[in-house]
């Protein structure tokens, strides 16, 4: 029941926000919605966190939610990151703030649904619906060129959704599963023949790759971030919605082990390439949000590498990295809003020397920035380390390539800090306001907590990662054959 409330409560608050007449209640109401969802998430640790009722019996679909597993962890972190985001948006968004907040709450409801759903059809429904708030935030509050960004975003999303829809449609009937609940699918889908699995997996993987995103399906990401509202709050919602990695982890890989194995080499190659690609390109841009978008693309490459290693440590690490980058990338987008407040621009040339007049802002930013480039002791490191460690066990070459991204990300981090905060300041800016302190507090707390004591979350992730089926011995040669064919095809495509 608690799991259902984690979806319904923010949704109800979103509706209430949209309808509530008095501006005075908007912000407290929105804060209540997020805090209550977070508290629910923290309470949903055992039986109360699970729910299973039939939905459409003839389809075999269920209202099945589970907040006690990997998805529960991600849902809690997402709610925790939305806490400062709602606080910040409530203060910084001037036009129709209650609707902006309503869409943020709707995002939270949708994310809870995606992360907690244990029925594939339900998952797909939430997956699709959560696109709406993101589009609405871009459409209603975006910058001048938002329309082009929206079209691009929508085209990619629709293409992905279409592929996933077919995959969802195929996996149930073809496997003869009793229903769409995860455990029902898990009992049947892994037994599908390897070639069918590969096709279905490809459908899922395409949708998830768009949403991760990884190269070459990432072009929408940068424009969306660039055109979002200058507060950065909508970018946080977008960052939290990068759920492709979770889809692979929770659905595609466990249900279709042979398909995953056949396509893993391709995934490893693309993931490792994305990691380096994003980090290198980020160094060439001078627009803060574009830089953050490419840097987060690089993280997603590492997530993909960890997942496609199909190794326990790799998959576990990828989920930890996904949770961590919600906090750090999200935090950096909020920082971008704070910086925009001070200079009215995202161009790096508008900055420099800010550390002198805003030392606390510089220090807090530095912590989040260094966390995001994987400095150990902070949030991203445990996930990044395990993802790459797993990748090394599966494909050393992919791990080595992805490690170049670690070097490049380091260069990117210190270059960015220098351009923003070091050098001779042109004019004074104000240091952090009390509101900004309140925004930073949960971000910094999470950054430290995920970095210093990641064990509990990792154990949860690992438990779920270990449940995935492996390829049976008799299927293995066929899988290898398919993998080789995919390799030839991919190589041909490159040429």
């Amino acid at each position, binding site marked *: 029941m608690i799991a259902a409330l984690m979806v319904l409560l923010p949704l109800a608050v979103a509706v209430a926000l949209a309808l509530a007449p008095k501006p005075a209640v908007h912000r407290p109401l929105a804060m209540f919605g997020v805090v209550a969802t977070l508290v629910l998430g923290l309470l949903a640790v055992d039986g109360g966190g699970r729910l299973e009722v039939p939905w*459409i019996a*003839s389809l*075999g*679909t269920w209202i099945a939610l589970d907040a006690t597993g990997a998805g529960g962890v991600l849902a809690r972190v997402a709610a925790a990151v939305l806490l400062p985001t709602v606080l910040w948006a409530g203060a910084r968004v001037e036009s129709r703030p209650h609707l902006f907040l309503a869409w943020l709450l709707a995002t939270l409801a949708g994310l809870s649904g995606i992360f907690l759903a244990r029925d594939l*059809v339900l998952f*797909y*429904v939430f997956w*699709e*619906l959560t696109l*709406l708030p993101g*589009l*609405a935030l871009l*459409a209603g509050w975006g910058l001048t060129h938002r*329309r082009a960004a*929206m*079209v*691009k975003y929508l085209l990619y999303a629709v293409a992905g959704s279409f592929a996933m829809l077919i995959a*969802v*449609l195929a996996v*149930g*009937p073809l496997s*003869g599963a009793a229903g769409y609940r995860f455990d029902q699918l898990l009992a049947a889908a892994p037994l599908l023949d390897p070639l069918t699995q590969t096709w279905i997996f490809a459908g899922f993987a395409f949708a998830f790759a768009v949403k991760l995103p990884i190269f*070459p399906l990432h*072009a929408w990401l*940068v424009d969306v971030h660039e055109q979002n509202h200058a507060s950065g709050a909508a970018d946080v919602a977008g960052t939290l919605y990068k759920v492709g990695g979770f889809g692979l982890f929770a659905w595609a890989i466990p249900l279709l082990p042979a398909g995953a194995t056949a396509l893993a080499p391709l995934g490893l190659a693309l993931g490792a390439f994305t990691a380096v690609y994003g980090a*290198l*390109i980020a*160094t*060439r*841009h001078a627009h803060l949000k574009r830089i953050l978008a490419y840097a987060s693309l690089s993280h997603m490459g590492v997530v993909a590498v960890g997942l496609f290693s199909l190794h*326990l*440590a790799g998959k*576990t690490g990828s989920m930890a990295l996904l949770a961590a980058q919600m906090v750090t990338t999200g935090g950096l987008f909020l920082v971008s809003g704070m910086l925009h407040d001070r200079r009215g621009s995202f161009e790096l040339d508008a900055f420099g*020397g800010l550390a*002198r007049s805003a*030392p606390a802002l510089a220090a807090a930013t530095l912590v989040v920035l*260094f966390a995001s480039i994987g*400095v*150990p*002791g902070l949030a991203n*490191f445990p996930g990044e*380390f*395990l993802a*790459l460690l797993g990748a*090394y*066990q599966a494909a050393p070459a992919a*791990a080595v390539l992805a490690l170049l991204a670690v*070097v490049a990300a*380091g*260069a990117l981090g*210190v270059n960015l800090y*220098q351009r923003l905060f*070091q*050098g*001779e*300041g042109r004019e004074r800016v104000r240091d952090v306001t009390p509101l900004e302190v309140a925004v930073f507090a949960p971000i910094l707390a999470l950054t430290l907590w995920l970095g210093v004591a990641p*064990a509990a979350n*990792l*154990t949860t992730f*690992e438990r779920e990662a270990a449940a995935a089926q492996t390829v049976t011995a008799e299927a293995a040669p066929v899988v290898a054959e398919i993998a080789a064919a995919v390799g030839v095809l991919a190589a041909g495509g490159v040429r």
Partner: protein
Amino acid sequence: MTGAWSDPVAWAALAPLFALAGALLVGLFGRRWPEPLPGVVASLAIAAAFVVAAVAAVGLLGRDAGVALTLWPFLPVAGLDVSVGVVVDPLAATFLLIITGVGLLIHVYSIDYMRDDDGNARYFALLNLFVASMLVLVLADSLVLLFVGWEGVGVCSYLLIGFWYRQRANADAGRKAFIVNRIGDAGFLLASFLVAATFGTLTIADANAQAGSFAFGAGVLTAIGLLFLLAAAGKSAQLPLHVWLPDAMAGPTPVSALIHAATMVTAGVYLVARLSPLYAQAPAASAAVAWVGALTALIAAVAALAQTDIKRILAYSTVSQLGFMFAAVGAGAYAAAVFHVFTHAFFKGLLFLAAGSVIHALHGEQDVRRMGGLGRRMRLTGSSALVGTLAIAGVPLLSGFFSKEAILGGVWNSTLVEDYGSRLLFALLLVTAGLTAFYMFRWYHRVFCGESRLARDVAAKVHESPGTMTAPLVVLAALAAVAGYLGLPAFAFPNWIKSWLAPSLASVGALHPPLWVEWLLVAASVVAAAAGLAAGWWIYERGRGALAERVGGGVMGRFARDGLGFDAAYRAGAVSTAEGLAAGLAVADRDLLDRGIAAGVTTASWLGRAVAAWQSGFVRLYALATLIGLTALAVVVAALGGRA
């Protein structure tokens, strides 16, 4: 190894917490405190850490095993069971004492050195944070936790090199240090992955134990050893990653003393020593360590000959001395290397603090060509610096003599790298020892002796530094003089430090030449030191530097002054390649992927126009589309499901 908090040795685990607490206190609140409170609080935090370190060291005397303590789980995944845990053993305790002891002196020195700097609190917070990271590094029981400290010191070093960030050059130097270190760090991660794949563990003790069961010289051990060498070369400024350290002198001078001479840069030596059971099984990797060390020692010493900045001379000297330590750990003379870390911390810390005292007195002047004769005006600084100079030069009976002799002897007698040219290594190091004595004589003479070449306005204001700055100098001078007696030549005398460290280090068999050969080795290092000093005297005292000016002005002089062209080569090679690649990818990303895919789609540009008409109604369109899609899904599934 067992451990519990009831054992005073385990209290050493508190040392990093003291330093961290100091960093947090000073960092969060120090800006509002009056001077010198931030410095005093920071110093007290390090003093507390020093006390628990000393308690641990005393507690370890007479034991033959360390104390292990597990604090909380960290990465309990895939059977790796990495915890936040510490091991306090003689090797760790030695480093703890160096870090907190020298660290305390340098904190105290900094109180006056950094007086009236508007970043005073930030400085002390970072210095404390550095000490905390360094303590984590040496206490860690696993490679993962070691890496936490390893990158932590890198981050602090970056921030302290660029401490005066308003000048572009300083921030650039910090950035360079960070990026070069990251290259080494990638090697560390890769090595860790290989360790996990090979041994199924990331705990250092377990990995070391398992390495012993591999065949001597097994390929995988060599690979691990070489990858850790890459990591160590980054942190300890060894070829080919040494280029960041000379630039690191952009930071405040006490930072150069603590981080870029006494402690952080020795982390690479610590790493190899900590993994000595593994390296002892991997002769090829050990030889690579030794050769990197010896070549670095020689090249950096040559570069040091031609520098004109009072701190850059010392920086190249540090690179060179670290090369000696690498040669020793490579050759299997682990205790000798740690011994040199120990003595070097005193005399090099001392030399840097003396340089700081001079720079302080001259209000920022750092060019030795505009110094001279300062020994008469700054007696304490001058005489302390003389002790440091003689110690590093290897003058008999001072600390550097004993530790350098131990390295030279260790390399000559090495069995581990006997087949990899140990005698040639010895020869390189001996020549370098002579060069060391020469360039250090030059350093001392140009600064403290001869006639004053100061600018007139500077000369009038020269003064000896205050007591908080000279007291650490005197303490370090005393230690630099006597610390060597802990490690007298082992072939003839009791060598305390070797037996103290024995429980922590692999024991590698050494050749035992006749006694007269051992004495000849001692004589050789005495001769090298004497020759270097004599040449220095002949050129700079007697010849007044005329010859040096002629040579230094030529092509070779410029080449050496530019650090033998490494920076230029990297700029031309790696840096421009990476930048070109990034630029190329960025163009491809924009023109091919983005526009290319978009162009394919703009045939459907009616969609864009339709959207234009709708604006936010567009969202409604999508909602509708979703609804239709879902309905279709339900219908199709029902149909298919019905049949199935």
